[in-house]
């Protein structure tokens, strides 16, 4: 399991290291932030089976808190990011406490509603500056040495932080904690009978996911030097769902692939005559109707089918596409 991921991950890292030769660093930073955001969302969907429709609340909280710390308190960037993560995690714990009481579509509706509530709170809170957003951010020096005003330095800092965050996600998924989460997803009553408290585990996962989403938001605010309402809207929550769906639910790299595709698609739509909302809506419909495994999932099963040993009629992959949550 681990070995099968080493090569693709290394290849991806190498590609990301040489990517600034071809792409704009700031565009790549955006993709990395989205990828981390999608991974945070997917941690909950893919491993706990909970679809949150309000994750923008944490992404936006991260962005606002990091911006607040950098612009008004002049904190060092690493401290600003930690602050963003802490507040997002706290918010995650509160929202999670309410939301994990229900499952499936109810969980989705509850997170959507609570996310909208968070949006209204930020809208009305004076410190967010309404439509103008929090501005005047000077990113400063990361860990006191890396000058973040240099785009490449900024890019590699963001790359390093996201890579660490991904490694952490990987560790967690593979840890006993991650195993218990999967056990809960597969068969909750059984997990209870084994003496685990599913609610507690779900809440922990939710909080962790919120913290990661906050980190992604904080990185974005630090890099773009602005935090705005856009990052807290339900549309943003919808977008991260789409990224994960396109990339492939249930695959470790799926959210990354999805974030890159949707981020690239938005950039492409900006300069085309096609109406972006219509295209995104159509992408949703297409993915649900015809492409439930997503890019990574489809590629994975294509590769597996090439190896005849692994292809059996009872392939769990085919079953997995019928359900998100058991």
């Amino acid at each position, binding site marked *: 399991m681990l070995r099968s991921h080493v090569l693709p991950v290394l290849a991806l890292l190498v590609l990301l290291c040489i990517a600034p030769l071809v792409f704009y660093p700031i565009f790549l930073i955006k993709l990395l932030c989205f990828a981390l955001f999608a991974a945070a969302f997917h941690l909950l969907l893919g491993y706990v089976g909970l679809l949150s429709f309000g994750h923008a609340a944490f992404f936006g909280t991260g962005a606002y808190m990091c911006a607040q710390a950098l612009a008004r308190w002049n904190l060092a960037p690493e401290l600003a990011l930690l602050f963003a993560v802490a507040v997002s995690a706290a918010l995650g714990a509160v929202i999670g406490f309410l939301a994990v009481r229900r499952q499936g579509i109810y969980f989705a509706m509850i997170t959507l509603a609570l996310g909208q509530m968070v949006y209204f709170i930020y809208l009305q809170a004076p410190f967010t500056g309404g439509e103008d957003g929090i501005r005047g951010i000077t990113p400063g020096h990361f860990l006191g040495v890396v000058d973040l005003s240099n785009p490449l330095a900024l890019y590699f800092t963001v790359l390093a932080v996201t890579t660490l965050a991904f490694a952490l996600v990987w560790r967690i998924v593979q840890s006993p904690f991650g195993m218990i989460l999967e056990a809960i997803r597969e068969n909750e009553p059984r997990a209870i009978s084994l003496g685990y408290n599913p609610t507690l585990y779900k809440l922990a996962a939710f909080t962790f996911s919120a913290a990661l989403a906050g980190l992604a938001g904080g990185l974005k605010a630090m890099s773009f030097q602005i935090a705005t309402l*856009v990052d807290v809207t339900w549309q943003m929550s919808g977008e991260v769902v789409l990224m994960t769906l396109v990339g492939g639910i249930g695959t470790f790299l799926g959210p990354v692939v999805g974030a890159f595709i949707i981020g690239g698609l938005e950039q492409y739509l900006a300069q085309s005559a096609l109406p972006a909302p219509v295209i995104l809506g159509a992408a949703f419909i297409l993915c649900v109707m015809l492409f439930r495994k997503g*890019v990574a999932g489809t590629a994975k099963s294509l590769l597996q089918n090439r190896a005849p040993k692994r292809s059996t009629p009872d392939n769990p992959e085919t079953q997995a596409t019928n359900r998100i949550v058991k």
Partner: protein
Amino acid sequence: MKFKPIMTAALVAGTALSALPAAAGPDAIKVGLLMDMTGNYSDVAGRGSVTAAEMAVEDFGGTVLGKPIEVVHADMQNKVDIATSIAREWFDVDAVDAIVDSNMSSAGLAVSEIAVEKDRLMIMNISGSPRFTNESCNPNTIHYVYDTYALATSTGKAVVRGGGDKWFFVTVDYTFGHDFQAQAEDAVASEGGETVGSVLVPLNASDYSSALIQAQSSDANVIAFATAGADTSNAIKQAAEFGIGQGDDRQLAGLLVYINEVDALGLETAQGMLLTSAFYWDLDEETRAFSERYMEKMGKMPNMSQAGVYSSTMHYLKAVEAAGTENYAEVMAKMKEMPINDFFVKDGYIREDGRMMRDMYLFRVKSPEESTGAWDYYEKVATIEAEDAFTPVSESRCYLLKEES
């Protein structure tokens, strides 16, 4: 191994997607517009603003300093990150010389900072945030059409002068609304009027009946809406329903109303409302001449921001010609030096803080009986001098003005 092909594919796709359309040679003069082409603001800006910029280039003759002039535009989808990354690419790769409009104040402010960083020029037409010429002012940015301070002040002063001296505010409950109301209250007080009450309503509240009942039970003779967009439309529509402002002794004042919103409401509903605008298509021969040409292309009349895009683009091109270079500093100096006289603005000038100073107009929306046809919506009630409408130098929070004084 198994993920490598996916990643390669994703990155190749990414390359293809983010690749820009082939640009003309570097020695073209390029102006760019970052518009919401398909979202909430696509009516008030969008394709219409791009068309206005294209008309300006065409009318200018298509070339300046012997170079072709090109208009580029992008759908920023109301996302700050898209707007800023495209602005960077435009400045760096496509050698865009000036960005002549951007939706959303947050995106506009960010783009304005990028313009400073890249030594280019930015003109704001659609957004009304006073920050552009206050806290966030810079030598690279011009705020051309209006700002919320001017709208609130002009409406406040002109309406009190016309006899509406007791004000009740229906205000959207966030920074934008709070500032908007405060500015209007100051203006009302400066002319001897008073604020008798106010009520806060949430953004996107859709139902205003509660606020309207409170307004109705006050003894105000002016009910002002410190709101924007769909909120204003809903508030006005429901005011008509409650019989406020139609046939009673109260007047409605919309602090920020685009003609597109009046068109969408219909005169039946909007009649009698007072509003301030920098432009109306049917003011004189010149405005009609431009607007009818625009109408032929777009199927609707231009609003103040769209007309502003034409006027500011034209002024920019004239300044390039006069300066003999596209260097932003020299062009900016010329823009600030040359007076502006066209259908959009008479004797306008650009102040040191980037504020284009122009007269504002108070309009009253016609009743269906008064209207002679499509788009015949406004009757001019008053003119507010530029110095009376915009933030005075003494109150400015812009460092560029502080240095001078």
